[in-house]
């Protein structure tokens, strides 16, 4: 079935965003967008009010009638209605879960991965070996009041006492759900199948228990799907039912409402699979930073709950340290003055940088928030721990163990940034520079930003299950993703290897449109930008001795890359980036790198 008009909304904690996708000349395109404040809190306490307000903006812009009697018209009739209406939600703080596992680094981590992958915030991991006494765990469960709990532990057929002990702790805590007193707390059991009866006996009627397949049936394999799907079902059945107005909203949508990060994750997973590439996506918000990645076909998501640009801006300062923030600020500032300015942004989170100095400070903090979030992500996105690896004689000197990070920057093909500080930076050059400075891509990496953060809506569109709509919805999501959602910034090229100041790292020959050929020489600590549009560009890269651009040390690469609004960026800085400690030299370096990319042309650093 061909879809002509698709309406999608994302109900965030503060803003509800609506987009209208239309089929124009055989292609799906973003036609209009609207937004309005979210209305889950008093005095409205009905999420649909905000949805209708956002859709009314679209009505005004498109001249199309979509609402009638405070309802979305989901049948197209001339100039009225839409074919499909879908929505995501993170209002009311999103989905907040606790997970439990027997061994923290094994079943505990698998449970955490399942919960994060489903789009939830993991408030705590309770494990038999987490070092806390039973009564401390009980108090913690009672105090946190999660929306849902996932218990895992033990391989199928293994010992049952440890996982039953976890259930006993949960039973003693007798936790109450955060929203609404009239329903039982949903608990998912995804552990040893032999313990299912004892778990039922222990938790009894106290909670709403659901049993799914073991998350770790054998040590060598993780089975996250059943738990992830159950989390989505229960999110709809229980948690969403309690949020004001959601029952009504659910009756309007043509597909289940998904938690916002869950939808973004499924879109990124789909793109990585479809194009056979490695992807990292980041969404930096006011309170949290979400990172999604697909490496070696494995999807991972992390939420850095207290790394953000407004509500938790001071936590970035606390975790990164003042010196790490200051190293990116291209002017001298008194330390007390800087901390007071950052503190004032925390207590008045909606303000915007008016002066250049304020912009510098904000972007300096963003670099550190992104760097720290990505570090947390790398530590989390690992192979399974606790499994035996077969070793050959060639591994004899390799000290690697199980549980190594999957994130290999040399393998990364596409880095996508979103969130206010990246999507709405006054210049795209600033977004590109922030992404490079904080993620430090290696080899050849394409950079992009999400123009208006519509990945959540596209994610839920791509994941529609209805048989007759499935394929069309998926292609609509992909077409809009490529045409309108992503703003291609360009490609970053960074050779890796040991080099001294003044060393030549790489020579490159660029051919655009089979005509214009340019030769580039990249020296250590250089930062160069070549303006080039988003189109196929032939490039021949010759790394010097000991330098690697992706094919191994000193190995030439002939490939096709893409430019973008910023173009091609040749980064000769080391990894991690070496910023001089001496104040004058530091300012000189920052100035050189900034001018190379035309980051702040109106300001003389």
């Amino acid at each position, binding site marked *: 079935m061909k879809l002509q008009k698709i309406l999608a909304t994302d109900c965030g904690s503060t803003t509800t965003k609506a987009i209208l996708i239309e089929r124009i000349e055989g292609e799906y395109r973003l036609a209009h967008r609207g937004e309005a404040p979210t209305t889950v809190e008093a005095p409205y306490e009905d999420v649909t009010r905000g949805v209708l307000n956002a859709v009314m903006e679209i009505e005004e812009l498109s001249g199309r009638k979509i609402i009638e009697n405070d309802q979305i018209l989901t049948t197209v009739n001339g100039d009225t209605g839409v074919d499909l209406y879908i929505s995501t939600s993170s209002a009311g703080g999103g989905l907040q879960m606790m997970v439990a596992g027997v061994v923290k680094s094994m079943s505990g981590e698998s449970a955490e991965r399942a919960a994060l992958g489903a789009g939830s915030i993991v408030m705590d991991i309770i494990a038999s070996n987490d070092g806390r006494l039973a009564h401390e765990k009980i108090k913690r469960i009672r105090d946190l009041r999660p929306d849902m709990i996932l218990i895992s532990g033990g391989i199928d057929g293994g010992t049952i006492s440890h996982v039953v002990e976890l259930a006993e702790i949960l039973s003693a805590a007798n936790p109450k759900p955060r929203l609404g007193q009239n329903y039982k707390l949903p608990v998912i059991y995804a552990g040893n199948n032999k313990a299912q009866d004892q778990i039922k006996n222990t938790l009894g009627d106290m909670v709403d228990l659901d049993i799914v397949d073991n998350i770790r049936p054998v040590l060598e394999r993780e089975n996250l799907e059943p738990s992830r799907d159950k989390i989505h079902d229960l999110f709809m059945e229980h948690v969403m039912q309690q949020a004001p107005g959601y029952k009504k909203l659910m009756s309007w949508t043509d597909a289940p409402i998904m938690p916002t990060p869950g939808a973004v994750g499924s879109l990124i997973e789909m793109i990585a699979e479809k194009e056979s590439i490695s992807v990292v996506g980041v969404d930096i918000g006011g309170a949290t930073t979400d990172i999604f990645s697909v490496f070696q076909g494995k999807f991972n998501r992390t939420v850095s709950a207290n790394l953000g640009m407004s*509500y938790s801006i001071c936590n970035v300062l606390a975790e990164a340290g003042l010196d790490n923030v200051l190293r990116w600020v291209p002017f001298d500032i008194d330390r007390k003055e800087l901390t007071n300015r950052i503190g004032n942004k925390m*207590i008045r989170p909606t303000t915007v940088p008016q002066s250049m100095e304020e912009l510098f400070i904000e972007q300096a903090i963003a670099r550190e928030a992104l760097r720290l979030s990505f570090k947390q992500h790398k530590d989390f996105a690992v192979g399974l721990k606790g499994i035996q690896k077969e070793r050959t004689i060639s591994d004899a000197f390799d000290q690697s163990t199980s549980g190594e990070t999957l994130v290999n920057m040399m393998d990364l093909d596409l880095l996508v940034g979103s969130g206010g500080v990246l999507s709405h930076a006054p210049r795209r050059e600033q977004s590109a520079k922030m992404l490079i400075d904080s993620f430090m891509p290696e080899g050849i990496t394409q950079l992009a930003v999400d123009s208006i953060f519509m990945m959540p809506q596209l994610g839920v569109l791509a994941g529609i299950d209805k048989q007759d709509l499935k394929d069309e919805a998926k292609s609509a999501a992909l077409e809009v993703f490529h045409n309108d959602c992503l703003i291609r910034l360009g490609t970053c090229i960074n050779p890796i290897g040991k080099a001294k100041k003044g060393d030549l790292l790489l020579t490159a020959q660029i051919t655009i449109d089979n005509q214009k050929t340019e030769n580039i020489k990249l020296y250590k600590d250089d930062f160069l930008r070549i303006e080039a549009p988003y189109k196929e560009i032939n490039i021949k890269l010759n790394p010097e001795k000991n330098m690697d651009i992706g094919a191994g040390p000193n190995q030439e690469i002939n490939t096709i890359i893409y430019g973008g609004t910023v173009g091609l960026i040749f980064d000769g800085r080391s990894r991690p980036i070496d910023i001089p400690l001496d104040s004058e030299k530091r300012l000189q370096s920052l100035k050189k790198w900034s001018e190379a990319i035309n980051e702040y042309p109106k300001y003389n650093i």
Partner: protein
Amino acid sequence: MAHSYTPGLKVLHHSKVSKDRRLPIRGEVFKTKGDTVKANEIVARTNLPGNVHMLKVANLLSISPADINDVLKIKIGDEVSKGDLIAENSGIFGFFKSDVKSPLDGTIESVSDVTGQIAIRDKPIPVEIDAYVAGTVKDVISEEGVIIQADAAFIQGIFGIGGESRGDLHMLVSNRNEEILTENLNQSHKGKIIVGGSFLSLEAYKKAIELKVSGIIVGGFNYFDLKEILGYSLGVAITGTETLGTSLIVTEGYGKIKMSKRTFELLNIHNGKFVSINGATQIRAGVIRPEIVIPLEKEELSNIDKSGNGQLGIREGSQVRIIRAPYFGKIGIVQSLPTELQKMESETMVRVAEVKIDNKSYIIPRSNLEMLEID
């Protein structure tokens, strides 16, 4: 006329303040609808269930968990005291007996023959709540608490630490530009809520805590110094549970910023009165700001000037405060609210307001303005 909705902090000469005083779990409520209460009066009480301790009986006696019921000397629901016999195995021919004794006073909550452990619950913890503000019981929430209503002057701060506190209001400075100096604090301030002008230094705050001052209301404080007071860097502005003894309410922001004229004058009118303050702050969706509640007597109500406009958003003529550098803390009057987006020095495109400060006109992003919500 153009207007913009930017919520500001409340500085009200008179407001009907309503406070929910609820127990964390069900309990006993002592007041009935219409009762008059004082701030320190207890209105409800309950007993929180004690903490649960797990005792690994099977492990301690080296028996199989399935055999636990054969060795137990107690049953579910029994009350036990520290040292009471919980379980004993029979040993071999009556010799080599071993036993398990209760490590605490409490009640047996559960016994598991899967893990071989028992759960003992501590004695209940009594919890009482008081009225917090002097007023009238507007409603009773059965077995949970009461809603107190009071006619009061009501002021919100921008940020605070420490929870609820009460005391006589004492103006420590005579103008809103003055700092609270260490040498101005003395024993007579014990139990009082003191008011300063532009700044509280770390040393002065430390001295106030030492003197057991109940609370401090001041224009500015250094973010840097919070770490020294709290013992950790404050990453996210969620406060109220700190046990400092001296709650702090900052009315303007971090740094040295003189208290707004209206706030200072309103506090000055009520100098010497018994007031309630709460430093609890939560800056996230569903924001909570610190507050100062000054109950009013009946005769005071008729004298209040209620000619204020009670407007909701920023309009031409509104009095606003700038809440971000480079003009942070300055107060001015909105002259116009142009509809077109304008480019700032940072090249950010924003909606702006033209604000007159000391007879000079400035273009400021609207989201960097805060309206003083006044009556």
